């Protein structure tokens, strides 16, 4: 039991994921700054930001709306992100082998942070937050089908293996899934799904700073907002890790950990570049993008898989 608690809280759980996520968010901010002719923040800036929110800033509660739900929602988000991260990282690091069907569990757990933001923002009673929440819901409906199809295609590709461990093993004994046409298509769709799950531009309409003034997070301040930041940072690490695991060969033991880190940095670089070279889409356009084009892409990939490509 104690060892599971260690897994959950320290490694590869909450603490490890939070630190890795914070460093990745620094990497993202630094690249963004360089693209925009700016100098960028120092390495520890995400930690300063987090601890300032957690320890220094006061919590302001909305006058109307449900306070308990408003406060519990961010914790739910952190819990969901951490649990999903555990199911991804334990097989990835070769600590535990997981169980049959854990890919499906991961898929559900990954939606938990988004749902918690919706619940929290609706509990705040702010009209801008309500608009943000409705946009987040529409966004989830749009990208979730694509994401499910990507996961299903990967399961097909691995020969009906329903657990992370076997999916990674199939790639390591054979070759990475991305080394085929269908794999490349799945990777493209997967990257866009991650972009939407992380609510990065062009899919940042739920927070849309210049339209809704941070939308779903508008009423959050102090420690609850720190929890939301934490959940977002964890997601910023585990989603690229998930993509690396299911399409890019995961991690070989030993010195190959450097190779694994490079793969993660590469995926994050891609996300960062997409978010810095696009304006925000409208929610209708984003829905169309996923429901029509991305789904079509994945269906084509699935057909290709059926032909063994």
């Amino acid at each position: 039991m104690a060892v599971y608690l260690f897994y959950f809280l320290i490694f590869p759980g909450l603490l490890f994921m939070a630190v890795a996520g914070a460093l990745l968010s620094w990497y993202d901010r630094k690249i963004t700054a360089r693209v925009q002719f700016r100098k960028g923040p120092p390495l520890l800036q995400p930690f300063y930001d987090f601890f300032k929110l957690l320890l220094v800033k006061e919590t302001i509660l909305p006058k109307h709306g449900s306070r308990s739900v408003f406060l519990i929602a961010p914790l739910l988000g952190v819990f969901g992100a951490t649990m999903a991260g555990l199911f991804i990282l334990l097989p990835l690091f070769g600590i535990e082998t997981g169980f049959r069907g854990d890919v499906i569990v991961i898929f559900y757990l990954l939606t938990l942070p988004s749902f918690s933001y919706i619940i929290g923002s609706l509990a705040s009673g702010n009209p801008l937050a309500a608009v943000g929440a409705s946009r987040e819901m529409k966004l989830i409906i749009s990208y979730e089908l694509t994401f499910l199809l990507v996961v299903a295609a990967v399961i097909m590709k691995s020969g009906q293996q329903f657990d992370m461990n076997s999916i990674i093993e199939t790639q390591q004994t054979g070759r990475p899934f991305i080394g085929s046409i269908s794999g490349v298509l799945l990777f493209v769709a997967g990257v866009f799904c991650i972009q939407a799950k992380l609510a990065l531009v062009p899919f940042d309409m739920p927070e849309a700073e210049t339209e809704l003034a941070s939308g779903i997070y508008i009423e959050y301040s102090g420690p609850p907002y720190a929890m939301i930041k934490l959940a977002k940072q964890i997601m910023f690490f585990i989603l690229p890790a998930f993509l690396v695991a299911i399409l890019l060969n995961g991690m070989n033991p030993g010195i190959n950990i450097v190779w694994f880190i490079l793969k993660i940095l590469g995926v994050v670089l891609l996300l960062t570049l997409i978010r810095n070279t696009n304006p925000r889409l409208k929610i209708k356009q984003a829905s169309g993008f996923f429901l029509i084009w991305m789904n079509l892409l994945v269906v084509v990939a699935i057909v290709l898989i059926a032909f063994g490509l």
Partner: protein
Amino acid sequence: MSRKTLIPIGPYHPLQEEPELFKLYCDGEIVRDIKWETGYNHRGIEKLSESKSYDQVFFLVERICGICSTSHPFAFANAVEEIVGVEITDRSKYIRSVIGELERIHSHLLWVGLAGHFLGYNTVFMWAWKYREPILDLFEMITGNRNSYAMFKVGGVRRDIEKSKIPAIRKEMGVIRKKLDLLTGAVMDDPVIHARTKGVGILTRQDVIDYAAVGPTARASGVDIDVRRDDPYAAYPLVNWKVITAEAGDVFAKAEVRLLEMYESASIIEQCLDALEKLEEGNIALKINEIPAGIGTGRAEAPRGEVFHFVVSDGSNSPARHKIRAPSYTNIATFKKSCIGQTIADATISLAAVDPCYCCTERMAAAYDNSSGEKILNANELIEISMKRTNEIRKSEAGHE
């Protein structure tokens, strides 16, 4: 009719740099009605102007707008020079135009950056503002200030553009063209920007005429107006340039007009520099000792549209009455046409597309009895008087025809 949600944009909101309140009455995400409240920025500029000398008023009107800070002195100088009845020297005309066009470039670059920011495209924001920096440096070299240049005075300008400074300006015009090519390419060819701005916030030609919109807002809807050409002042009749118009009237057309106008501005500046090289240095201001009694109107094409100044002089050293109309005064009224029926996402960029400047346009009117000091007319009564006068003028004009 279903219940409408009120989505407030303001008084403090990341979309707008200034405090003002837009109330979007929404049905889901669709904006059904819009109302706005301004008045957070009222500074009493017109009243202040009556207590300053003509030289001081230039510094005051320069501070009406921090971005187009030379268009108000431009219009005020035109108005006062009309009262005096002088024609300024050619050299000062060219210098005025150089300053005016440099300002247009930096103001339009600022708008392009902000529009990118409003669309969530922060890279364009940072790049456009980076490109704007050398223009501000040029201003510092020419006038000593990056903003609020203090260049104008009645009868000319305060500082000369010496021959030694001309190569640096010329070089920067070459550089800014290349940067504009890059920026224009990034904006004009990006399919996602097309998806976000084409067909959004459309103002038809008739809307523009109905609401008397001015500047790039009007030109983007195919209304070919530009004070620089229609009511020539400074060096604009002496150089070759064309008025940029577009037909679509949407946000994309407004961006297109502004981007292409910057090329025209660069070309105007280069022609003015050619002329300045030929003219002798010095002789930049006429000596004007007295402003006679009379009335004068001055117009100038600010980056956002027509600026109008009306000055009444009673022969003393300060204006007896100074009326200012900034372009945003008419432009922000077009929101009624451009925003209703759009989604919130489209409405916000439509709000920003006219490049509104609220503090420039905020005015208050009240009428006091001189002897007792009591307020005798309220706002509604003043509006009634104004409408009556307008109708009288209309009737008398109809009589002439």
